[in-house]
Structure formats: C-alpha cells, structure tokens
C-alpha cells in the first residue's frame, strides 16, 4: 500500500479504493486464469489457421471440437471418462514440480501400475470383488509409485537428471509390458492382440450410477483434492514447497530433503499407477499395448497448463479430455488425421510456455503500487 492508494480513497470515495484492493488481492489469481486462457485461445487460432492451410474450414473445426467435447450428454461422458486418467497422470508431474523437479515419466508409471494391478487381480481370482479391487488399487499405486521413486532416488543419490531418467523409464516400462503380455503373462486365447488374461467382469469397477462415466473419475477428483490439501494445508506440503523454493534453506532448517523427494515421487507415481489400474479395471479389463495411449504425455501438458496446481488440474484435464474426445468426430466429419489432436496439444503446450513471459507484465493487473 502506498500513499497514492490512500489519497485516491480520500479523493474519490470508496469505489476506486475497492477497485485497487480487488486487483491487489486477486490480481495474481486473475493472471493465473487470464494468461493460460489467452494462450489457449492463441493456440486454437494457430491450429485453426493450420487447418485452413490444410484445406478445411476452421469454423467447422471449432464447432465439431465443441460438439465432440461438450455438445451432448454423450460427448460429456466421453470427455469425463478421458479426463479421469489425465487428472492422475497430471498429478504425476505436478507433485514433483512442487519440489522443483520435472518428471515426465507418467506414462511409464501408468503402464507399470496397470501391470501390477492386473497381476494382483489375476493372483486373487475367486476372492470377493471388493477384495480384488482394493488389492488392485494398492498394487497399482505401489507399482507406479516405486517406478517414479526410482527417478527420484537416482536424482537424489546419484545426481541423474530426473527428466531424462523418467522418460527413459517410459520406454523401459513399455518394453517390460510388451515382454510380459507376449510372453509369461500372455493369455493363449488372445491371438491378434497379445494380452494378459481378463481380470473378470465381476472385478471391474463399473460406472457411476446414471452415467457411463466410470468410477475412475471419482478416484481422480479425490486424488486431486487430496494433493491440494497435502501441498497447501499440511506441514509436509509446506516443507516440500520450501525445499522446492530453496533447497539450501530447507537443509539449513533441518528438513530431510531426501525423504521429501522420495515420498513426493512415490505419491506422484502412485497417482499415475492408479490411472493405469483404472484403465484396466474400468476400460480394458486386461493389460495389453492399448494402455500406452499417451495419457501420460497429455498429463504433462495438463500439469503445465494448470501451473502445477492440483485443483486447477481438474478443469484443465476436463478441457484436454474434451479435446481428445473430439478427435474421433474430427476424423469422421472433417477427414482429419487422428494425430490432429496431438498437433493441437503441441501448439497449446508451446503457447502456454511462451506465455510464462507475460506474468507480472500486464499493466492494468499491477494495480497502483
């Protein structure tokens, strides 16, 4: 607060002062919504121009994207079904980001989580469905969690860059999955598409009543809210943010940085592993190469677009779930290749990162200070 602001109160009464107060209080929040929003609009415009060069009408594109994502109850359900794993894989990037780590291996943790969850289900055949489901959740979280903990441990104890190691682990996870579904875990009956045996219809987690959206969405929402509470309203989260801001300060005040890194990486990987478990228990019913559908990579984009905030991840995941849900419609109605969704995601990512330069530079949001 400066004398300037005080003077304006005296001169013009309450209203302008409230204005200044509003901007000073919420300016940062408005920025966090306005700038990524503008980046999104810019990316859509560039993608529209790209599609126009390709010879299609960009207005048709926008209409079908909206229609395919949010136009009908059916498309809403499709969107929400895709948003569920995206929330969880985005958390896999957003949680370590609080510690200043860039983890991009959510896809690998998803695959490993799917494998461990499937193994648990297959080992417990004949048990009550609820037992199998709980075991699958635990196995998926542990599998995915340990996978990302590996990246965290390599960084902490060996100084290996976590971005590169987590990405290399994606390819290794994919190789393990392919090896297991084509070898030791293969269901002999799966001829064209090598897969594991099915976990059994009784063990599937099913849909939320009245919808065709599976319960995975609720898992995702709970995880996102829990992550938010953990980071912003617990001592642990505070410690993590301190270590992310200044690792030396964290060490000086006696925080165990190793423990923080390993725990956060485990939770992050656990989220992605849960996404893998959900894809098995709610969609595929078994593990095969279909699981490598790129949710882990889109999750990175979701996390960056949400500025690594677990609550913001929810709407962003729904938005990007919508974009990928509309992909099928774009293919059918406009004859666009299925990769157009990937192109749009890439353009959005580039715009969002470039927009980082805008923070603190928008004149009217600075208020008078």
């Amino acid at each position, binding site marked *: 607060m400066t004398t300037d602001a005080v003077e304006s109160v005296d001169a013009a009464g309450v209203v302008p002062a409230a204005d200044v107060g509003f901007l000073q209080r919420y300016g940062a929040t408005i920025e966090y919504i306005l700038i990524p929003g503008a980046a999104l609009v810019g990316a859509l415009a560039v993608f529209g121009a790209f599609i126009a060069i390709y010879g299609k009408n960009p207005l048709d594109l926008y209409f079908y994207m909206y229609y395919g994502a949010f136009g009908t109850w059916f498309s809403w359900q499709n969107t929400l079904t895709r948003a569920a794993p995206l929330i969880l894989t985005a958390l896999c990037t957003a949680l370590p980001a609080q510690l200043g780590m*860039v983890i991009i291996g959510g896809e690998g943790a998803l695959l490993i989580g799917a494998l461990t969850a499937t193994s648990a289900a297959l080992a417990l055949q004949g048990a009550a469905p609820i037992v199998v489901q709980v075991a699958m959740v635990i196995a998926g979280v542990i599998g995915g969690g340990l996978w990302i903990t590996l990246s965290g441990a390599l960084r902490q104890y060996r100084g290996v*860059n976590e971005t590169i190691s987590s990405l290399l682990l994606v390819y290794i996870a994919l*190789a393990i999955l392919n*090896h297991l579904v084509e070898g030791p875990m293969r269901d002999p009956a799966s001829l064209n598409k090598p897969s594991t045996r099915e976990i059994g219809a009784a063990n599937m987690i099913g849909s939320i009543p009245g919808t065709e959206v599976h319960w995975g969405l609720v898992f995702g929402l709970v995880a996102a809210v829990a992550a938010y509470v953990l980071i912003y309203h617990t001592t642990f989260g505070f410690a993590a943010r301190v270590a992310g801001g200044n690792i030396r300060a964290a060490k000086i005040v006696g925080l165990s940085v190793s423990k923080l890194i390993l725990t956060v990486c485990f939770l992050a990987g656990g989220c992605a592993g849960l996404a893998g478990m959900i894809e098995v228990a709610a969609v595929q019913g078994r593990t095969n190469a279909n699981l490598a559908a790129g949710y882990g990579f889109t999750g990175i984009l979701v996390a960056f677009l949400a500025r690594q905030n677990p609550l913001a991840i929810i709407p962003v995941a729904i938005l990007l779930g919508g974009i990928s849900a509309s992909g099928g419609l774009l293919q059918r109605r406009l004859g666009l290749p299925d990769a157009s969704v990937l*192109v749009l*995601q890439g353009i959005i*990512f580039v715009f969002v990162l470039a927009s980082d*330069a805008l923070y603190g530079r928008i004149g009217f949001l600075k208020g008078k200070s």
Partner: protein
Amino acid sequence: MADASIGLWTVPLAVFGGAIRVSTPFLFVSLGECITERSGRINLGLEGTLVMGAMSAYGISYLSGSPWLGVLAAGVTGAMFGALHAGICSLPRVNDIAVGIALMLLGTGLAFFLGKPLIEPTAARLPAIDFGWWSDVPQLRAALRINVLFLIGVAIAPLLYWAFRTTRWGLLIRTAGESADAARAMGHSVLLIRLRATMVGGFLAGIGGSFLSLFYPGSWNEGLSSGQGITAVALVIFARWDPMLCLWTSLAFGGAAALGPALQSVGITSGYHLFNAAPYILTLAIMIITCSPKRTVTGAPAELSITR
C-alpha cells in the same frame, strides 16, 4: 539357410553391422545436441525434430525423387524447430527443458499428421557404398554396406572437436555456455549465439531423422523413432560434451540397439522386447555410473540448466 555356414558368428556380425547402421541417428542427434548444450542450453525436443526430419525427408524424397533433397529438407525442418526452441527460450522466465518437452510432443504430432499420406508410398532411398565386395560371406557384406551419411557423421565429429578448440565460433559457443556474462561483456549477444547453436543442432538432428526414413529401417511409419532422440540427448551427458566421445558412444549404442534383432535372426526370440530396450537400460546405467550428486559432471558447460 546361409546362416548355418557361419553359425553363431551371425550375432556379433549383426551387432557390428548394426553398430554402423543403427548408430547414425544417435551420432547426428548427439553431435547436434553437443553444439546446443555447449552454448548453454538443452534441447530435449530433438526427439520431435528427429521424427519431423524423418517425415519431411521421406516426403520430399517421394515427391522429388531425390533422396539427397530429402536429407536437405530434413535438415532445414530441424533448423526451423531449433529456431522455434531458441525463440521461445529467449523470452524471459521460460524454462528450456519444458520447451523441449513441448516441442517433442509438437514435432511428433505434426510428423504423424503430415506424414499420414506417406505411409503407403515408397520413396527413393539413399544409396549405400559396398565396402564388403571382397568377402563371400553375405552377412559380412550386408554389415559393410555403409551409408554415406554415416561417413559424413564420422567426419563431422573430429571437425567439431577441432572447431570447438581452435575456431572463433567454437570459442564463442563455449563462452556462451560457460559464462553468459563473459560473452555479454565481450559484446556478443548470448541469445543470438544460442539461437545459431540450437539451429545447427536441429539441422543435424533432422538429418539423423532422414537416415531413419531413407536408409535404415528405410520407410516412414509412426513407430519409426522410439526414443532414439532422447537417448542421444542423454548420451551427450555421458560423452562429457566431447564430439569424439559422442562418436564412440553412438557406435556402442548402435551395437546395443542391434542386439535384439540380431538375436532374433538366429532364432532367439524370447526377451525380444527386453533386448530392444537395451539402449535405454544402457543409457540409464551409464548415467547412474557417470553422474554424481556431489559435483557437476566433468566438462559440463556451467550455464547448462540440467547439470546445475
């Protein structure tokens, strides 16, 4: 089967041939990344550049009938991606690693989008030089059919080594990478140096991609590159930012990557996927051995975000 005549010797021979054939993309990407990282910036997007290069080389070769025009197109595409990376990174507060991830996704997506019509047709491929004419063993002859791009890559490595040490450009790049302030004090624009270094890096990575689509495996499909780009970026760290070490490690990686197909050719098919993951496991193992939490890696450019 001719295989029977030399028996299990097929495996080391195939690994040897693979070391030459498979290593070429590793070599180009790692040399390109070496230049970029020496200037103080890391471009993780070279995975996307590699795929884009492969697609554009195949497309141009198919349309023009000249594979060399395709190689050039791949290089230019790569340089454009490099310029995009450097352009975004020059904005304030933008993280170069994140931009690399974005360009990895964008490059792959764009290549799949534009390359959709290229999956069916066959493009003119790059010619190979037959160094094995003196031999009667077909496997040896196959192993010694060497592409010119490989030879160019082998030539670039010592050239770069020399350029970093003795030329003005090499000194400028190293200055920008070791201390941006020093480069600024000398009156040079760090952003411009890094822009050029990233563009040259992208150019080389694009050419690496053209090798994938125009020589080995020699066709365009969406599974063409699976992490070669990112492996090559990691390889630069292991090679301590030394172009000559980049050459030797690329050869080693090529050999590791050829192990899976080589074993398959003699009938050892179990664990095929695991052998295919050998380069990634090797990269990870090497990074574990060479990195240390106590100090930055020897030879690392001081401005590099990944080692700080």
